[in-house]
């Protein structure tokens, strides 16, 4: 049985920081499983889904988005205190997201160009993952996350077991599916060998190279893959851009993209 405190269902809260909302919406997108999810947990705080907003503490906090402002920093610390377990979801929350591209630029200059009154803008100079500020119990990768993996993680926390979320390469998923390798057979550059499993190898299944949406896999040897990209005819700029996607600021991808910058 799911862990219940004082005979009540575990209370779950969903929070959002800098992000597009796509990941938290995957919970609502669970369709067939949604009733079972609603049956197993008490969704106490999920502004995107319900006006019912119960105060903490919560048993499980699910956090989407990256930390980009001083206010975010305070807010995530409060959230951490109010949640038993903290699960971060998506590339923003686990790596800083696409908005981390600003981490290589001068944020003040952006603010000056974009806003009429820049003095009202209070922002950090970098977009960073939740784990840079508070302890995170589980990071679920992806841009967006896979809804089945999200349900699996919630399920695992409810039953106090290990989530069946794999950290190996996308290649293994391709092989389990019987995909023909797009890099070897078609010469298409693919980040699959250095990217974490989770999406079900969607892009290679449709003859595209992996874009690295799930971030670096458990032991990413990015320099070797970059060298192979180069042999396939990719320029240094192409290689830098390939690693500078949704997970650009994840350590292994960040280093590799910088290594090929002009």
């Amino acid at each position, binding site marked *: *049985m*799911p862990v219940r405190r004082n005979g009540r269902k575990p209370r779950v809260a969903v929070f959002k920081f800098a992000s597009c909302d796509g990941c938290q919406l995957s919970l609502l997108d669970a369709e067939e*499983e949604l009733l*079972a*999810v609603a*049956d*197993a947990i008490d969704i106490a705080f999920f502004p995107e889904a319900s006006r019912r907003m119960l105060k903490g503490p919560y048993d499980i906090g699910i956090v989407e988005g990256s930390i980009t402002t001083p206010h975010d920093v305070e807010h995530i610390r409060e959230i951490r205190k109010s949640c038993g377990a903290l699960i971060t979801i998506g590339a923003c929350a686990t790596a800083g997201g696409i908005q981390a591209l600003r981490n290589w630029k001068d944020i003040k200059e952006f603010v000056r160009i974009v806003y009429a009154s820049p003095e009202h803008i209070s922002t950090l100079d970098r977009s960073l993952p939740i784990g840079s500020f508070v302890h995170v119990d589980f990071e679920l990768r992806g841009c967006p996350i896979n809804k089945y993996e999200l*349900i*699996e993680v*919630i*399920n695992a926390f*409810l*039953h106090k*077991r290990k989530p*069946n979320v*794999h*950290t*190996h*390469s996308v*290649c*293994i998923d391709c*092989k*389990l*599916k*019987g*995909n*023909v*390798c797009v*890099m*070897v*057979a*078609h*010469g298409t550059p*693919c980040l*699959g*060998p*250095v990217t974490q499993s989770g999406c079900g190898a969607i892009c290679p299944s449709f*003859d595209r190279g992996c874009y690295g949406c799930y971030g670096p*896999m*458990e*032991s990413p*040897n990015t320099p*070797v*893959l970059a*060298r*192979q990209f180069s042999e396939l005819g990719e320029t240094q700029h192409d290689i830098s851009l390939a690693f500078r996607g949704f997970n650009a600021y994840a350590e292994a991808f960040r280093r590799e993209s910088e290594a090929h910058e002009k």
Partner: protein
Amino acid sequence: MNRTSKLEANNLQQLFTALQDKGYVTVGPTLRDEAIVYDRIGSANELPVGWSDEQSPANYRLTKRSDDSYFGFNATPQSWKKFLYPPLRKLFTMRRDGKSLELSNESDANIKYAFVGVRPCELSAILIQDKVFQSGEYRDDAYSAARRDLFIVAVNCTTAGGTCFCSSMKTGPEAQKDFDISLTEVFRDGAHFFVVKIGSELGASIMELVETGAASAEEIETTDAMLRQTESQMNKTMETDGLPRLLAENLEHPHWEDVAKRCLTCGNCTMVCPTCFCSTVEDITDLSGQNAERLRRWDSCFTVDFSKVAGGNFRISTKSRYRQWLTHKLSSWVEQFGVSGCVGCGRCITWCPVGIDLTAEVQAIRGAETQQRKGD
């Protein structure tokens, strides 16, 4: 019935029909995603007629042949392993009923496969997996059931791929035994036919349903010459003399570090290997906690989880993972199963995204040792 006969190429469909009439699901090579893959096919027309491939480390390209050959290509991206030993398999489901647990074993309806186009190296690989799954203390009943009903049409290799080294591993290019029938495809003086050998009584009974003629001594000699030519085309070699000992005595060789620098730990080599058999099990519960199931899925010694045990992980480094794979395949496998775990199909070389070539890695270790000995 004559043990060797001749089947005209345009009668090949009769073999498919005969197998299907006997209740077999026919599986064979076919074109898909710019490659030749093994899949369920209904007729000879679905074979990759007139196609071949070029293979080198980290490179595979389809090529057009100048003839209408049915089997004029080399090793496919994946082997037959996926049919006998599926990548994912549900082992059992469990249901909580009050205080008791109800367990039901999954027994999938067994599929009676006929593999059409098993290469000699692949046949050896199937025999190796037979030892893995059907001998010793731990046996796989589902594998045994699939294997028991399997009909094997072996096809001898009249062309060698760029990463093949079956002649080094003594597994090809001709299948000697353990098939139901074997075919060698021949183009000779404008004629296109197969020389058929019967390997089992079952094979003989199927061939009775197929129109064949007598193969002349000359025609048989032609196939022998073709197979000798394939052997001479073989691009790669692996010296197997004393190989298990060589690797076992060189576990701290500096070359392992060198490979580790180039290895992606992506696991492709183990997935495409026709003998690699490692799996993991995963327990899944439903949200209510009333139902659970156990799944088995292919695993790889290149994943971190593979060597994670209570208290830590005994193979963190890439070096230790690559070394584990290669020394198991070529050295400790022999101790464990009495044969090498490598059949020389070359898949791990072609499908490694960065083209790591185990024959070259072995040679590097052997070369260094030979030099060292000379220096002594």
